[in-house]
């Protein structure tokens, strides 16, 4: 699959501070814990060059945080970006290393078509302009896990530019107050991943694992249009959903990684203050100044790769074998429904709240589960939504399971909701049945209901009888009620329910009780 799979690392997360006129959000006064933010701001984001010009005194100016991001998503491909070695997780160290990956002298890069397709699809999904011609560059720096001494990337002319990413954030207290924001996508570029350094402090050694070296990455550069860590985290999450929608292999792994990254982003408020960047190699934050100010990457065109040419149906060379060229239009046709469209469809089709549509998409496989249940049950979509998002998801979270690991199948839940829908069982009984289903003993909801005698009491006369005897047995509660304590009725309802072993509908009990009391 051309599914981009995320491995989040932000060696170059771009933070900056911009002066704002009306203080739409954020702090007054200079950020704490730093003395040279202006300087750093300038070195990281060229769009705010005016910051250096003034040295604001404390409390004199208003500042707003600006967050830009460089996100590295690992492309899910069978082989690496420029070599035929396998891409595979948890393989023994240095077992997936070709001569090229180890930078043996004389080896040359050969571009992986699959990675190019993944980049084009991502570009299309983010409304980017796809460059018909893009170029590869070498970015030089010495690092133990960068065997060639340079990384092949796309600095001058990347494969896609000028896109946008829309994401929804909730404003105010209520989660339903969602606002759509847009962050500009500066560019998407193809580049190689580096290897892994394992530091053995005990023996003061560094061990190198090159399994990851040369795996294809998509670097998505987001302009500094976001104003806080939370916005950034939401945008990143949305990007992840889009990349997953383009193909979802190995997405479980990504979940862990995104969570780690989101945590970091949410802690980003603090990082922001100090204008530090997270260095995923060192595993800690480092002052940005060091990285950006002193390092000169000595970019140079990669001479071993001809320009990457892409075509569309209009520019396709006559007689070209479709297998031998990349046709952007054909890739566009293959684009799946994107998350934003899916959410809109859910709201429209099932009348669900926007935040519920978000929740359904935020868990891998949850939407598919939901749709399977909807297909098989007569229950209202709202009911299904509530059950899937509250009960089902709650159980998953509690046990830290993925949707695919759930012991309850969509059919079983659908059957359970059918029982509930035709009032064969009460809501509380339904919960009980669900718990039983979760234990996964191979029984259907109907079997569980029968075994546990959970079906609702359908015999109205029996209910009348039970209510009457309850009233007679608890005269002080009745007295309480008559003295004007309205909550006393609930106690009576509870007593009757207990007597029915929970098989009676509380609304029905209440009706009968009220009738009997007033008569």
């Amino acid at each position: 699959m051309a599914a981009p799979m995320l491995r989040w690392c932000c060696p170059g997360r771009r933070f900056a501070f911009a002066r704002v006129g009306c203080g739409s959000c954020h702090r007054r006064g200079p950020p704490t814990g730093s003395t040279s933010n202006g300087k750093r701001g300038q070195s990281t984001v060229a769009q705010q060059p005016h910051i250096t010009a003034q040295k604001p005194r404390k409390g004199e100016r208003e500042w707003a945080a600006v967050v830009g991001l460089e996100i590295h998503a690992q492309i899910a491909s069978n082989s690496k970006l420029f070599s035929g070695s396998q891409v595979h997780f948890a393989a023994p160290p240095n077992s997936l290393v070709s001569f090229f990956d180890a930078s043996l002298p004389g080896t040359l890069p050969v571009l992986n078509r699959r990675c190019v397709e993944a980049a084009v699809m991502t570009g299309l999904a983010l409304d980017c302009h796809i460059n018909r011609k893009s170029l590869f560059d070498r970015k030089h720096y010495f690092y133990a896990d960068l065997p060639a001494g340079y990384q092949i990337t796309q600095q001058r002319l990347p494969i896609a530019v000028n896109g946008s990413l829309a994401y929804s954030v909730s404003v105010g207290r209520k989660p339903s107050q969602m606002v759509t924001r847009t962050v500009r996508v500066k560019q998407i570029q193809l580049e190689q991943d580096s290897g892994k350094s394992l530091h053995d402090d005990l023996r003061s050694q560094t061990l190198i694992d090159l399994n990851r070296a040369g795996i294809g990455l998509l670097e998505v550069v987001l302009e500094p249009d976001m104003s806080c860590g939370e916005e950034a985290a939401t945008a990143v999450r949305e990007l992840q959903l889009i990349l997953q929608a383009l193909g979802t292999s190995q997405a479980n792994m990504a979940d862990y990684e995104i969570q780690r990254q989101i945590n970091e982003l949410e802690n980003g408020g603090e990082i922001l203050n100090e204008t530090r960047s997270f260095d995923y190699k060192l595993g800690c934050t480092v002052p940005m100044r060091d990285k950006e100010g002193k390092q000169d990457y000595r970019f140079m065109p990669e001479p071993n790769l001809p320009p990457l040419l892409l075509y569309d149906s209009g520019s396709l060379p006559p007689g070209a074998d479709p297998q031998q060229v990349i046709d952007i239009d054909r890739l566009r046709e293959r684009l799946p429904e994107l998350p934003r469209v899916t959410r809109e469809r859910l709201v429209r089709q099932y009348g669900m709240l926007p935040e519920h549509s978000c929740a359904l998409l935020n868990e891998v496989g949850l939407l598919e589960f939901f749709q399977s249940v909807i297909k098989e049950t007569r229950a209202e979509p709202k009911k299904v939504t509530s059950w899937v998002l509250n009960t089902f998801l709650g159980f998953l979270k509690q046990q830290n399971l993925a949707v695919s690991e759930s012991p309850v199948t969509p059919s079983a839940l659908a059957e359970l909701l059918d029982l509930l829908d035709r009032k064969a069982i009460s809501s509380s009984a339904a919960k009980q049945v669900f718990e039983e289903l979760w234990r996964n003993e191979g029984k259907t909801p109907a079997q569980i209901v029968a075994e546990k005698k959970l079906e609702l009491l359908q015999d109205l006369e029996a209910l009348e009888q039970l209510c009457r005897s309850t009233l007679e047995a608890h005269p002080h509660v009745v007295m309480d009620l008559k003295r004007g304590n309205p909550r006393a009725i609930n106690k009576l309802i509870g007593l009757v329910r207990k007597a029915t072993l929970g098989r009676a509908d509380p609304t029905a009990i209440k009706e009968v009780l009220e009738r009997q009391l007033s008569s």
Partner: protein
Amino acid sequence: MVKDGCAHVKPAAATDLSVFLLVTWSLWWQTGHEDHVGPDPPRIIFSAGKALHRGALGWKAEWLLSIIRLLRLSPTLDGLEVSVALKQGQVTPTELCQRCLSLIKKTKFLNAYITVSEEVALKQAEEAEKRYKKGHSLGDLDGIPIAVKDNFSTSGIETTCASNMLKGYVPPYNATVVQKLLDQGALLMGKTNLDEFAMGSGSTDGIFGPVKNPWSYSKQYREKRKQNSHSENEDSNWLITGGSSGGSAAAVSAFTCFAALGSDTGGSTRNPAAHCGVVGLKPSYGLVSRHGLIPLVNSMDVPGILTRCVDDAATVLGILAGHDPKDSTTIQDPVKPFTLPSLTDVSKLCIGIPKEYLTPELSSEVHSLWSKAANLFESEGAKVIEVSLPHTSYSIVCYHVLCTSEVASNMARFDGLEYGHRCDSSVSTEAMYAATRREGFNDVVRGRILSGNFFLLKENYENYFVKAQKVRRLIANDFVNVFNSGVDVLLTPTTLSEAVPYTEFIKEDNRTRSAQDDIFTQAVNMAGLPAVSVPMALSTQGLPIGLQFIGRAFCDQQLLTVAKWFEKQVQFPVIQLQELMDDCSSVFENEKLASVSLK
């Protein structure tokens, strides 16, 4: 007529001055990397049909034909002898191999070889012999001894680049060109000497010491020296081979092999070929795979071919040329086997003489031979015209920026971690890098790395690298304009003069020498064109002088056809090394062997 057979591949449109890349392929990956995990390294397998292109001849006849062609200048056998010997089964690949090995030993003092792969060669010879006995020869090169410059990866055989950095490095894979030769049954005699990482023009700056030009010991040169009554000690006055492929040129010149691979980035194949009196071919950029060639300047490097006659160069090129899935800059179009026609009529040819190549430094002798060659073409009916390549004079300085920049980048991988030399220091990773690279590289390499990194610095990139790329485009366009005006082939000197004594050569430093010696050869690499140096005559000192032919991009066959005609006309004499190898004297005296005309 000679225009036929040109591959119809054109370089990218010359509109984009900021980016210079020699080739833009419209269908660029074809057999490339399609996300399939492959065995590593995948072996190159030739189709059975490949070796059958002269199918009309039987296998025995095929072997004979190639042996006769390739042994024509053998010191030990003349054509007739070989033919008889083969017919009677008297000469076998093993015998041929042993004779070459014995010559390698006798000429050891030339320092042409860094590694002699005797065991490998003998084993390959044995296998070739078995094939011949069964009548299953692999083709033209089956059983033929060859040598390979020590900057091509050879599986299981040390590949040093004449540098401490790679001393003891044994690659696990073969360069594509090496593999292709081996697949044809060629016998790998050894790895030849060079300047460290091919940076030089004398073959004097490698860790294994300088290569000595076989012509220093030739009868022709020694007699002239006696006449000129020089009193200096002869042994200390040996000549350089030129470089950086001096080991390969000397190996071919001294008959230790029949063909050798060199590399050519600024003239490194043609320059030593001219000094050693052999044919040196630099194919079009993109025609021959660079996979496994340890790079100097990726955008200019081409594997070069050194042989004793043009036909042999064409034979080897026919085997090496073509797309390599492991080198994305090789042409996609299939290359047909080269078979050079014998040109009888040059009246339809247009030969260009670039006026800028008449520099003050050009020796009068080379100048007069150049004129003589032009006159030769003219007298035989070819149109000879003066042409202009106005930007050629900027070539050296432009090359300096581009070469050092790519060198700085390419050398970054030598950090002592994965392979090659590593220093003893273990203070820190950075200290280890620094010490390793200081110990591993010579001054020339370190100097180029330093200047290259300077040119690539953010503040210098636009002023140096980008400008040099633009100049490169102008230099390349000069050639395009000349060829568009109807010129078929350019005729130029290869070198300023004949080979100079080592003691003379080292009076200037490597950088000065490289700048001087590459003057006629380097612009060709900038433009990616094919060029060949063909020995023309001996100087008054008795030393070879070669002239260079430059062809249109991917018109290598046309170029070689013209070179072959020229070779036949000039009848360059065979080197006479009888004092060196007295047991072979009878053969050396046979002047008839000078003929390289095969058909």
